[in-house]
């Protein structure tokens, strides 16, 4: 029996359908779990928190959802070593819940995905993510090649990693920066960063390597039809591009 993946839906989530579709296209056994039935989450082996505006981003992105009943169960699963992958709003929720970077006391957020800078506005921009760790440091990225370059879309108003210098130092020394923003050729500089994120950070991993939070959306550049100029193979419907990180996630469950 294959591992079962839950995609929890909070009120305000908006990327659940394409997230489930891509997981399935990558061989995963994924389904939605609705906020009115949180206990159903117990039956799953892994969790993908998708994008959106859970609870309207009240207070700040992820702040309310981090205390939702569904998150109690996701946190317990993460503590038990199950894989948890958050994208965009999902990443914001994981950070608010203190699951990433996880450098301080348990369940205490030690960093923030703060408002974008220098412009605080929502930004929708195509980006690339470069894997910044040895692939095996995070179970979810273990099947990616070293230095993998993943195409994705940044689409958020609050994605700038912000923390005190000491916390940032812990994030670096603890090997928590999973992905950095890069150009299409893999080079890294401040121009590649769409939101002013500290360390050019696009994704964080926890200490144990089973929880990954990334701000951009690889699932929006994940099929050949999303990037006709860079088509792989000849099937326009085939997963490609950003699907690599989802494939790696599914492989980690095999």
């Amino acid at each position, binding site marked *: 029996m294959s591992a079962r993946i839950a995609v929890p839906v909070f*009120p305000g989530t*908006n990327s659940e359908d394409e997230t489930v579709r891509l997981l399935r296209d990558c061989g995963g056994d994924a389904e939605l779990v609705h906020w*009115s039935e949180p206990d159903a989450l117990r039956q799953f082996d892994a969790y993908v928190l998708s994008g959106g505006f859970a609870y*309207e981003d009240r207070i700040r992105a992820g702040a309310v959802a981090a205390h939702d009943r569904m998150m109690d169960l996701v946190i317990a699963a993460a503590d038990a070593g199950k894989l948890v992958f958050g994208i965009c709003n999902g990443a914001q929720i994981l950070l608010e819940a203190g699951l990433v970077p996880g450098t301080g006391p348990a369940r205490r957020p030690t960093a923030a995905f703060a408002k974008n800078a220098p412009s605080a506005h929502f930004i929708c921009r195509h980006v690339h993510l470069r894997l910044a760790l040895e692939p095996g440091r995070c179970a979810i990225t273990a099947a990616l090649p070293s230095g993998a370059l993943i195409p994705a879309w940044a689409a958020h108003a609050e994605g700038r990693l912000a923390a005190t210098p000491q916390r940032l130092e812990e994030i670096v020394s603890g090997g928590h920066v999973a992905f950095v923003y890069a150009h299409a050729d893999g080079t890294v500089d401040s121009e590649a960063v769409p939101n002013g994120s500290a360390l050019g950070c696009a994704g964080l991993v926890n200490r144990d390597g089973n929880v990954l939070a990334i701000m951009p959306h690889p699932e929006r550049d994940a099929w050949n039809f999303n990037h006709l100029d860079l088509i792989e193979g000849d099937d326009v419907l085939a997963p490609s591009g950003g699907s690599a990180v989802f494939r790696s996630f599914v492989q980690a469950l095999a």
Partner: protein
Amino acid sequence: MVSSGVSGTANVALRDDELARIEERLGRAPSAVELHAFDAQWSEHCSYKSSRHHLKRLPTSGAGVVLGPGEDAGILHLGVHEGERYGVVVAHESHNHPSQVVPFEGAATGVGGIVRDVLCMGAEVIGLADGLRFGSVEGAHQAYVATSAVDGIGAYGNAIGVPNVAGDVYFDAGFDENCLVNVVALGIVNENEIVHSFAPKNADGWQIVLVGKATDPSGFGGASFSSLSLDSEDAELNKGAVQVPDPFLENVLMRASYHVLRLLRQLAIPAGFKDLGAGGIVGCSAEITAHGGYGAQIDLDAVNVAVEGMAPQVIAAGETQERLLWVVPPEIAPEVLRIYNDVFTLPDVAYNARAGVIGQVTAERRYVMRHRGEVVMDVESEFLTGSIRDELPYTEVIRHEGAVDELPAVDVEAIFPQVLAHRDVCSREPLYRRYDAVVRGATVLPRGRADAGVLAPIPGSRLGVALAVAGNPRYGRIDPRYAAEHAVLEAMRRVVAVGARPIGLTDCLNFGNPRKPDQYGAFVAAVDGLAHAATQLDLAFVSGNVSLYNESGDGLAVPASAIVAAIGAFDNVGDAVTPGLKEPGSTLLWIGSRELVVGGSVLADVLGIEGPLPGLSYGAERAAVAIVHEAIARGVLRSCRAVRDGGMLTALARLSFDAMLRGRTVGAEIDFGNPLCEGGGFLCEVSDAGAIDLTGVLRVGETNDRRELIVNGVRFDVRRLYDVWSQPLEELYP
């Protein structure tokens, strides 16, 4: 017996003759509820009373039309996937008046409403577009409108998770006091699973279910507000007529409604489903029943309200957002309520939001409403919703025929950067990057990449949809009819330029005061232009909207603005033409139809000159489209852009920018009389010009292996041109 006794008719827009007609038909003075019900239903906004008889001239049927105008949205046949026929649902609305007064809320609620119009046809909402016309943003209020309206559109569309894939923006002093915010929504539906905006057969005794936000006093009088000219002294008063957006609730409402739609399909139960727009509960419940040939009994006490003690006319006619109305058989109503209230927990999502039964469908065609046990409204359904008509006099607008003027000698080296930096040409990215263009993961060409947005809307299917809008106000100033024809042509060219087959159109007609014969004449001329162009191109209008009274305090109408959306189809979305020059050594072709004249162009604006608009040749237009499609079919088309604002050289520059942004080193050398004239047609990069019939096609140059454009011997560095083009809106939209 309804008690009369309206003490005055303050705050209604009904005219004395209309009021007299109502009193005569009722045999008594209308109650307050009736007065406000007629005020909304007989407003221009709801009744199209002065436009409908002209709109009848538009072609609305044809082979690809699944559902023409008349319901909340129209439907075009897209294609067949796994034996099932799929349709594209499309609706087009304006939210001009609200956006001028409170731009964030006005524009946001425009998005919310158009999305519900598509949703209630049984469709999944797949995309958005916006046509924006802002004033000259040197003015503080104009800049506020231009930025806040964009933020409102973004905040709403981003939160509900519908990608914004197409649109256009113009800045013009003619919109200083009346911005235009037009929005288009697309949906996808199995053609066997369409839900209609009226009660189905044998619905006598079915239940009327109101779903969504608790009714509040916001938006009371909105329909009649939209049907008057804005008076700046009333700005504070007008704010009360604008609705309050809650995209968070709409997000949940959409998902819950998808759930209900799935249930009804599984059980093969028909239903009526309709958005509450102008006219609120009374407008929606009267229309959904009357259009099915029924009456209705409505109990206002069953309505979920936000505050106690609201007057019955406010509950009945207020335009609170995020509400929908179902007509369903009694046996299924409890399950519909359970899905909204318990599964999707509407009452926890927004204060007192819920689904509840508020009345019944009746065979007798009377619309009866009760409040606290009293009958507060009792009228013939058809009298309320039927054809009120207002045939107003208008001045014939003389068509400017295209006498070709002498082309000015232009110093391309000095002028081209000015054209690229012009407000109508420069990059819109600072604006549209605030919109999510890629949520749903189905975006093939996002906003701004190409002339049209492209989506792959059906999981597992190669079928594709293209969407573009057009409507050039510089042309509208000179000639309303020509501008309307041009809007059809440009919208069509835009979807052709990405490789799609045009399948249909929608329109939003934004004009001045219909009670002024010259302003009304511009509207009538534009309808003629739309009808002529669409007929010549064998395309139908399946949805549309009219926004009149876009008139400034000193009595000037906005530039004539027939804004047209074109919808295109792909059998295989993999055939979409991707942005940017592809390879050195390609041949560049101009496949055009019009004489090169300067009138109405950006060049004319930069040079401060005037001239007549060119004539049109529909035969040549059809031929140009056929050539582009042939080049795609033969596999020789490498890139393509429609030639529009800023002329062919701007189109070429855009192709070279896209090549550079993708890391390709490709430029071009062309030789062409005046490349800044807006000659229409297409600029195409082809690998083998010999593969296609070149009748009517002009070879203008070829691509090279440098980031350089050489135009009539003048050299331009592509990076420097890009910097000129990409910067101007950065200050307004940081």
